[in-house]
């Protein structure tokens, strides 16, 4: 692709999904995370470890950035959107916490680069990782702007789950071994289980009948999980209320003061996680 070509066709660059392509999704799982309520307490992160068989890598591997926290709490000391505080001396507006998990992008940058199609898009709008297809090229993690993909550089089974800790492992999902990329799945085992139950009972899924481990554990109910395609779902209503739509690189809000935003939306990744702005007194 020549530079000239790029400049000429810039407006068309990676816009395909806005104009057509596959839209016949069964569900579109999404999250809403209210940063006005998040207190950065780590409950969601530990709940994720418990639910998803996440390995504890230990200090040495952690230092090398080889940790496996699918959901992490980022902490920043500045607020670029607010006027500088009166004091340089102290962080007078506290800290800024950001729970970060796979954003389940609909135009995921990780997907097209996988040489073996181990990372692909499901009919549920999820960005799935097929562990036994993964060859560990790590292109996907290299391409993820959120750095939310975690690679198993080592086999952590022996060190992370010495007996009988292994008895806690959730049998609904696998334990990943060396050489495999892994990431947040929106607790796909819970989705699977709820779908099976609904099918067995010959009914539709009901909003709120199940939730992800993070949303369930949140002590301040800052995280809401649900199906964005179900307009009656709680999460869809929050997205609607805050005037954030899928399939856009820039939201055209009727009321620009509404708090919804998506991280790195301008990169055209079309994430399914909406954050609600943190609020401060001044």
């Amino acid at each position, binding site marked *: 692709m020549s530079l000239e070509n790029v400049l000429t066709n810039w407006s068309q660059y990676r816009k395909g999904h806005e104009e057509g392509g596959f839209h016949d999704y069964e569900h579109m799982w999404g999250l809403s995370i209210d*940063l006005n*309520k998040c*207190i950065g*307490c*780590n*409950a969601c992160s*530990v*709940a994720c470890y*418990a639910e998803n068989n996440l390995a*504890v890598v*230990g*200090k040495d591997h*952690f*230092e090398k950035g080889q940790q496996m926290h699918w959901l*992490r709490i*980022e*902490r*920043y*000391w*500045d607020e670029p*959107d*607010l006027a500088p505080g*009166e004091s340089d*001396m*102290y*962080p*007078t*507006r*506290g800290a*800024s*916490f*950001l729970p970060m998990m796979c954003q389940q992008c609909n135009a995921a940058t990780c997907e097209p680069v996988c040489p073996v199609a181990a990372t692909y898009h499901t009919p549920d709008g999820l960005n799935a990782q097929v562990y036994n297809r993964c060859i560990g090229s790590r292109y996907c993690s290299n391409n993820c702007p959120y750095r939310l993909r975690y690679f198993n550089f080592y086999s952590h089974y022996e060190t992370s789950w*010495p*007996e*009988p*800790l*292994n*008895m*806690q*492992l959730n*049998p*609904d999902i696998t334990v990943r071994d060396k050489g495999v990329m892994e990431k947040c799945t929106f607790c796909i085992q819970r989705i*699977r*289980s*709820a779908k*099976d*139950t609904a099918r067995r009972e010959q009914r539709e899924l009901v909003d709120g009948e199940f939730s992800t481990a993070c949303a*369930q*554990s949140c*002590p*301040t109910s800052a995280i809401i999980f649900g199906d964005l395609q179900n307009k009656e779902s709680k999460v869809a209503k929050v997205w609607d209320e805050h005037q954030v739509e899928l399939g856009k690189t820039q939201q055209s809000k009727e*009321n620009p003061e*509404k*708090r919804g935003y998506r991280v790195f939306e301008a990169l055209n990744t079309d994430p399914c996680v909406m954050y609600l*702005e*943190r*609020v*401060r*007194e*001044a």
Partner: protein
Amino acid sequence: MNGNDIDRRSFLKVMGWGGAGVALAGCDMPTTVTLEEGKETVVSYLMPEEYVIPGRGVWYASTCQQCPSGCGIHARVREGRVLKIEGNPSSPVNKGGLCMMGQASVQSHYNPDRITKPMMRSGGSLVEVSWDDALAALKTTTGEGAEGSKVAWLTGTVSGHQRVLLDGHLDALGTDKHFSYEVINGAVVRAAAKAVYGDEQPEYDMANASVVLSIGSDLLGASDSPMNYSRQYAEFRNAPRGTLVQVESSMSLTGGSADRWLAVRPGTEGTLAMGLANLLLSKHGKDGSGLSAATKAAISSFTVDVVVKETEMQAADVESLAQLLADKGANSLVVVGGVATGYSHGYQTAVASMLLNVILGSVGKTVKSAGGFPFEQLSAQAGSTGGLFEFTDSANKGDIDVVFVYGTNPVFTAPTSTGFADSFAKVPYKVVLSQFEDETTVLADLVLPLASGLEEWGTHVAAHQTAEKSISIQQPVMEKLYKETKGFGDVLLDLLKIRNEADFGKFDDYYAYLVSAFGALPADFKGGADDKTFWQNALSSGVVAVEASKADLSVAKVDVKVASYAKDASRPYNLTASARLGLWDGRYANIPWLQEAPDVISKAVWGSWVEMHPITANRLGVKTGDFVKVESEHGSIEVPVYAHRGVHPDAMAVPMGQGHKEYGRFAKGVGVNPLSILANAKDEQTGELALSSTRVNVSKVSFNEEDKMVRFGGSESQVGRKLVASIKADVFNRTEGA
């Protein structure tokens, strides 16, 4: 399940049939086989245990045993193994939420370093023995021949029917020596609340307050009920949004969420409270009729100038805070606790802060009576450091021949300066009830292996009470991992049978006792249900609601005397051993998930660090990652530095929890224990250990590769990207106001 070890009847009994809570479906077809004992036997589920549906998780209600706040939990059990813990929406304490420590309780349960058999000291080391031998030894030391009045209990917080049995044991022995000890406690605040409000523990209506001023209290983190406050916080933040002001010398989890985070010179929080009181009375015309004449006189001397000089805060910050409180009046809520009360004048600071509620008229509005708990004998005996001192005094006098230690690890948590280790060594016979070989357990003469909180029966009453009262049920959610461990209640019953066979001999085990105890409840309490139905409903929901007895607050005119700041040139810094949700007082340092969860402020994992202001770091010639020696009168620790602005330049904060010399593979040798070098200073009024008052000197030392700080993330700044976007509250109230 351990294959053929299972006796189906006992399994049913243990599970409390009828106690199945919410059932969630698993996959349609079972896809797994048993993993236990390294065997994968496909036939096992051709004939599964009755009531076990392969592939289907069943949720049992129980009570979290991780801290004294007593949250209700649902435990997911599949193929006989507990996999996941979630909050129980029926519990009035947490209503569905659960903190990281509760989530991680499965790793306490499955911890590879559990004690599996009783151990007795023989020839200097602990040797495994049978329960028969252990009970025989206990019969000799605490039986009829022994001097009952010289037997003591040293415990953490105990409540419910375990407390009934423990009191029964003390009665049978003819002793009153029960010492209840917690490092992270609200004892000073309770004493001050009793004096000011006439109620040790009033209920704070944070959800409906317009402004919350927290003086040192880490409500959302290491407090007496973090889940209750977190839930209230979520409501508090709805439009019209309440303002949270946090005043402290080093930032806590709650401080991180504050609208105004105000640094205060360590130990001068009381001065600020007095200064605010003065402004409210003199400038904003608030009513001082609830104050004593002496207090009013004392308050009048705290001008803004005095406050600024003492606290090193900005005059404008103090004045605008007073203005904010005056504007919101009775809708304000002032809470105090944590580091602010950890000084020799901690009680006075607490009283001064509580008087602000009196001045603002918020007593009866945001500060309310939580009502009384109708079954006094079941309520929690909250621990304090005072309990530790009473124990050491008693042991030093030679009044203790036998001590039972349960739910606390004082050898680790008691500062060296308290002389606890020597006092403990003076007790001739030490019995430790524990799941793990911690620092206290290794000194025991007899070790009784406890079942985990997910394997035992019990009832609990939350240490922090709200107006919604309940008894929370704890039931085993799976077979015991180790046959020779026993629940705390069962051990108590064994001990009672040694002294009082007549009353307690009829109970086969603690379960039988509990069932009979519930059967014995008054009929009107059961709402017309027969005993069996009532018991099964209790197991199913996990909580039994109890009507609160009526109680009111009565404000007393308390005198207050706030000390001025004392400089110490030889030790210029003030050391705070900060309490964190996570490792707590060190009892969760053996849980790998919690070790690997980045700290809320520093984002460090698997180790210790000292938080200091960048100005201080500059002065000392260090930067983040360098090592310093923090030296008190009683010893020193070497830790890496985390320099950030959320600390007063005179303060040094080292989170507690690390620095274990025992406690299993995940905890041992990780980090340092700041508690070990604290001074033995006490609050003058209550005699509680003044946890934040230790003066230290800090100097740079050479880098230590082994203990270096490892942190998550490199960037402290968003570098202008829209990661965490912020807006102002007035916009929020406009767009999202009701």
